[in-house]
């Protein structure tokens, strides 16, 4: 199969185009996914920041009911998986899931270990590090963002409840966002990119094959048929009209064939003449075709090595010529 010129031409083009388009699509997909996750994380961080600011007034006034309401309302949103506020010890004080209130969070959990890895916990983290992704018991992907509630002078000096001024962090707000819409968008994007890639591949490889077929493979096949015909001696039957290099090749083949045919005719005439003197006379008329040095070679060329007409009929003919 690989000896066929069409296959040999199309295979490298197909491998290169297919492979390169697939690589580009995979890289593009991974970059788009990264950007989308980044946007989602920024959205989560902003939401956590908004919540902290919204809860500030209620916390200063020790208005627990308003704070509970705020947490419950935000937690009721479809895209929010959970909202909770826990204190420095990890005890959950407010949560959208009421049964969680009073429990302790695990400091070694994925979102907490970033701050609690060392002996002294970190006070601040950059935006992207505040986020963690995990799978909830229902098997859904959740992006959780944590925001520290810092001890401000108004908190430490507040009349409602006393905080030590040296305590840097009063609590942590933890917001979990459902990543199902993002995952769904990524699946859709993957399908669209796959279809787009397949269309590009069909168009590119199809286009290359069509152009090669039109300009090279079809004329080449005609040339092959013509050459096979020429080898059998019926050159006049179907001379293809080809352009460019292939056309020149056809002309050259016709020229060679014509020369061979004329030489064959002359040899036939010569062989039909039995008189040695008449043969010599004929050779004298066609010095180029029947020169003494290359005449046997010409006969061999025209009739083939085994069927040299001079050999079986007249073994002494070469010497006589």
């Amino acid at each position, binding site marked *: 199969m690989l000896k066929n010129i069409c296959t040999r031409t199309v295979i*490298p083009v197909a491998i290169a185009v297919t492979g390169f388009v*697939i*690589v580009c699509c995979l890289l593009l997909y991974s*970059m788009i996914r990264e950007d989308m996750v980044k946007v989602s994380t920024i959205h989560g961080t902003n939401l956590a920041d908004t919540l902290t600011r919204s809860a500030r007034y209620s916390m200063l006034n020790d208005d627990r009911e308003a704070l509970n309401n705020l947490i419950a309302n935000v937690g009721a949103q479809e895209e929010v998986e959970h909202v909770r506020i826990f204190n420095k010890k990890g005890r959950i004080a407010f949560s959208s899931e009421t049964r969680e209130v009073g429990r302790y969070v695990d400091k070694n959990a994925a979102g907490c270990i970033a701050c609690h890895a060392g002996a002294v916990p970190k006070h601040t983290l950059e935006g992207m590090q505040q986020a963690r992704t995990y799978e909830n018991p229902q098997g859904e992907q959740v992006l959780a963002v944590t925001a520290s509630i810092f001890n401000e002078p108004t908190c430490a000096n507040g009349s409602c409840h006393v905080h030590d001024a040296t305590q840097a962090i009063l609590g942590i707000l933890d917001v979990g966002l459902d990543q199902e819409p993002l995952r769904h968008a990524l699946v859709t994007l993957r399908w669209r990119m796959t279809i787009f890639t397949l269309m590009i591949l069909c168009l590119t490889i199809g286009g290359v094959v069509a152009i090669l077929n039109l300009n090279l493979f079809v004329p080449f096949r005609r040339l092959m048929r013509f050459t096979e015909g020429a080898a059998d001696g019926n050159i006049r039957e179907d001379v293809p009209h080809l352009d460019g290099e292939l056309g020149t090749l056809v002309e050259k083949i016709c020229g060679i064939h014509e020369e061979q045919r004329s030489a064959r005719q002359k040899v036939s005439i010569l062989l039909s003449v039995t008189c040695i003197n008449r043969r010599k006379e004929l050779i004298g008329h066609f010095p180029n075709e029947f020169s003494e040095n290359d005449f046997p070679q010409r006969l061999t060329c025209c009739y083939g090595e085994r069927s040299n007409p001079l050999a079986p009929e007249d073994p002494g003919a070469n010497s006589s010529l």
Partner: protein
Amino acid sequence: MRQKIQEQIRLCEQRSNYGLWALALFVAISIAANSQFHLLAELALKWRTLLGPPPPANWINGALFIYSFSAVIQIFTRMMQGTEPRGTIFPVIYLLLFYLFYGASGAQIEHFWAVLAAGITILGLESYSCWSYYQTELRSAREELDRLDRLGKLS
């Protein structure tokens, strides 16, 4: 003379499979990389202490894109010029480095398929170019051997 040509034929037959060997080696490396992500991550931690933080995944993506493009162009240029394919092992080394870089940046799982697709494309083309070149050389050598055989019979 005959011995020289026979030796050339033997070498061509051997070398025409170099591309396929490189492809097989790359597939083996990819299987190992896929099943040993955790080892790469551990290795990455050791590197991080020695060499500092790795480049971001987007930079490695850009490098992979440029490398794939230039490697394909290079192979096509070599095929057009009809020069002997050399250094079939180098793409395998470069691709292994990409696995290591992605492993060090902690983004190997996401980019595994991109490196695999790039490797199969580059090494597939490389092995085709290698096979094609040595098949042409083999044909010439065999024709030369036939010619010598005919001359031998005539004399």
